[in-house]
């Protein structure tokens, strides 16, 4: 039987082997479950700034522009009852735009929210449908699984909830842009969801997850081995999202001793010459957003504090949501 001491020794032996091989030791989370397979592991992209992709050192971070806003959204849902085998899912989505005001404190500039019911309407008996329609909540139809399935039906309803979140996010963006048309808007995630606003020149998407890889080969190596305070060359993603965008990787924190994706984010902007020209400048002020640290969130290495605050704001508003 392998003792704990022997396990520790194995750990050290492995680390030594990695170092001797020219690698970098890391300390990722210990997993106990096999995750769901990535839906779109690869997508295509083309180089627009340099080919091959380079690592560009950014130098000192700079103060962000005066007018910067931050967008994020949340969603809550749960089955509140069953009519036969049909789940009645209640959903809530909200999105907010927070801006920095005097004294650098964040305050809400735009807010959109919605509470609703999601249910496969076709499957409902007339009486139940009438009862739900009599409520003041909007009733959304969820895709009907061919055979009732308690887990699948809720998952299908969740997709509707997610779409509603994207809608309220889009609504919040519209609200904000109506108030401050020239300012920067940093959104949590890809800008692809904001179809109608992607023309907004100062839209900046901040992507924390890297399930989809746009680069391959040495380009991918360059991107994932980025030193802290560096960005990659700008490239354009051409597939995998509904609209194309120019994008680049940015390393916020050193990854050594952690995980290769530690501190790595990807920034997106609507395609334009300015977007490429401003990549370094934008990266520098995003680097300055490392402080304050969103330390309470497990994703603090990739989550900038203002986005974290938008989430906190929305969570505080919704509370326990019962």
């Amino acid at each position, binding site marked *: 039987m392998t003792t704990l001491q022997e396990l520790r020794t194995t750990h050290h032996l492995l680390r030594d082997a990695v170092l001797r091989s020219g690698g970098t030791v890391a300390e990722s989370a210990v997993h106990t479950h096999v995750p769901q397979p990535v839906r779109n592991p690869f997508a295509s992209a083309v180089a627009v700034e340099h080919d091959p992709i380079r690592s560009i050192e950014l130098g000192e*971070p700079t*103060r*962000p522009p005066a007018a910067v806003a931050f967008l994020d959204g949340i969603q809550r849902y749960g089955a509140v009852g069953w009519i036969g085998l049909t789940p009645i899912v209640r959903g809530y989505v909200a999105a907010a735009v927070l801006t*920095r005001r005097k*004294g*650098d*404190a*964040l305050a809400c500039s735009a807010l959109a929210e919605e509470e609703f019911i999601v249910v496969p309407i076709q499957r409902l008996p007339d009486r139940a449908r009438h009862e739900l329609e009599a409520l003041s909540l909007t009733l959304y139809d969820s895709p009907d699984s061919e055979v009732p399935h308690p887990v699948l039906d809720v998952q299908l309803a969740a997709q509707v909830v997610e779409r509603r979140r994207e809608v309220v996010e889009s609504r919040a963006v519209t609200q904000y842009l109506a108030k401050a048309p020239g300012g920067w808007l940093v959104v949590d995630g890809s800008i692809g969801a904001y179809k109608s606003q992607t023309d907004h020149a100062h839209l900046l998407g901040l992507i924390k997850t890297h399930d989809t890889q746009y680069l391959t080969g040495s380009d991918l190596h360059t991107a994932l081995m980025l030193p802290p305070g560096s960005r990659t060359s700008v490239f354009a993603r051409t597939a995998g999202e509904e609209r194309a965008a120019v994008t680049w990787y940015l390393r916020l924190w050193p990854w050594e001793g952690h995980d290769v994706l530690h501190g790595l984010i990807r920034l997106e902007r609507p395609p334009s010459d300015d977007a490429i020209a401003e990549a370094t400048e934008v990266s520098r*002020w995003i680097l*300055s*957003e*490392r*402080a*304050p*640290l969103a*330390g*309470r969130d497990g994703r*603090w290495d990739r989550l900038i*504090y*203002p986005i974290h*605050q938008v989430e*906190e704001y929305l969570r505080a508003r919704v509370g326990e949501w019962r």
Partner: protein
Amino acid sequence: MIRISNGDPIGRVVATEALPAGPHQFHFWTAVNTSLGIGAIVRVSDEYDRTVYAVVLDGRAYSDLATPLHDVVASEGDPAGRPAPTRRTEIRLWTAAVLRHVPEEPVQPVPLAAVHLATREDVEVALRIDGYVGVEQPTGLPIGLYTAGGTTAPISLDADFLLGPASAHLNISGISGLATKTSAVEFFLSCIYQTFPAHKGSIAAICFNVKGPDLCFLDQPAELSDADREMYRQLGIEPRPFDRVRYYAPFKADGVNLNTLRSHPDLVETVQPLMWGLREVLDYHEVLLNRDDIDAKSDAFIDFLADRVVEKEFRDEWGNTHRVQTFADLERFFRAILDGLEQGRGDMWRTHHVATMRKVRNRLLNISIRCKGLVTDDGTVSDLPFGKFEDRALYVMDVAGMDQLAQDLAFTRVVSKLREHLERRDLGVDHVVVFVDELNKYAPADGPDTYVRRMLLDISERGRYLGLVLFSAQQFRSQVHRRVVGNASTTIYGRMDMDELATPGYQVLSPATKIKLATLPKGELMIRHPHFTQPVFVRFPRPPVLTGPEGVQRFPPAADVPFEDAVVRQLTALDRSLAPGRVKEIIGGRQEHDVRRALLATRRARPEDVLGYFRATLGSSMVREHVEIVSHSTTPLKQVEDPYAP
């Protein structure tokens, strides 16, 4: 600073399972930049017409920083690094203690509602001042201004609870020089004199000046700043000095120079000498004779003297008749008795042993030496006008220059006389405030059980029924007898010492309140009063009278002068047209004690013709006749034959 207009909430009550809102205490948050502070009064109202008034006890601020290390990481270890573009979310979380619920019943947890700064009207309701101010028979006595969160409101105490009969007494603590204790009492007395309600009767005060010139210039106006005048205006008090101040001070050992720092020629005429004779002292012998001196036998002999000898005609066994009225008479009495005993070879006289008598004789006769200036050998008495106290008059007894024993005697006798007269309702006023500084000296928490301390305990426990009210002050409350300060219904704290605040008596105060007390600026006090369920901070203007140091600067004390010059000075103070040479001519060759007696009578009478009165009182043949008491049954005293005898 966030601008708050009237009616806008400044915060919201928050309650969690770990930090719930109760009926007596709750928590609320405000904007980071708020005008709120420790001691501010707030109001919480809900939609069910329930209103809670509370005072802020404590405040905390924190951000969403999970660990200080995160700040280090974000700043990359450089404290001087560039500031973060976004300020962390912060909270100002306040703890407030409930002052009042409206309606009073049922007592419920504070509603989780909006918090407002108290308005002037709110402050009155919160502190229950509305129960005794603005009513048919008001009993409010202004004591200072509540100034917090942009609200200024006069704070009044209830006369029924400050001056009796419901409760009484005031005690003030704080560091000397910073707590402004004396100034506060001067200001309070000024307020009381101007606002004491007519239906409560008349009032006077006796202040014992126990150190320096503190209370020597209460009739002299101070120069006040505009801010002070504005405070007076808001309190409805006129900033004027006391107009009926009567000063009393003993003489120095020489018997003619007054033992006071109020001896400037322009002021000395207003100081009455304080002189007591044998009877005045004998009644309070317990003060002067400590426990080691007095046993049951001595006590019995002193009682015998007081009951049978002093101020009575007493015939001894050797045929002498004594009428003991002065210490000199007492000395002659003792000499006669002891000589008689020596002749008779006996040890006992009327059940008293000769050793006891010698001991009592030594102790009693020594008093006139130890308290010289206050106690006279010749029986001359100049005392406070017991029975003729005037309404709103302030009697200042300057005992600062006397030794501790004489101070104890002065204090005990005056207070005892006040009590006697108040019991008989013939003092002249219905209420008397007695102000004593350095209470820890007179009623210490530990140490021997003295007569003075017992008397202070008695006043503090029973004085309110008589109208005898104790205003006392000391640096350290913990060093004063617990029952004396505990019976003070109104307790005031100025700037406090941190060590003192760490003593058990201050456990009820929140840490923030203690910090505030330890850093209180001059002119700000914390008050506890029976109607206030929590301590309240108030500001008060500087008193309308000169402080001791200012007074000494403006009226420098006169230097002591020889006997003749002192008599001239005192008479010319009564009549500035008097020629010094004429006075000296009149007193030339006269016995000093005769001159003193005439001088005292003249000062007391304040006649129009000062010199004529003085001369008439002195008499034309005031040469003292020396009469030897010769006992027919005893031989002349040996000492008389001794040419070196004193």
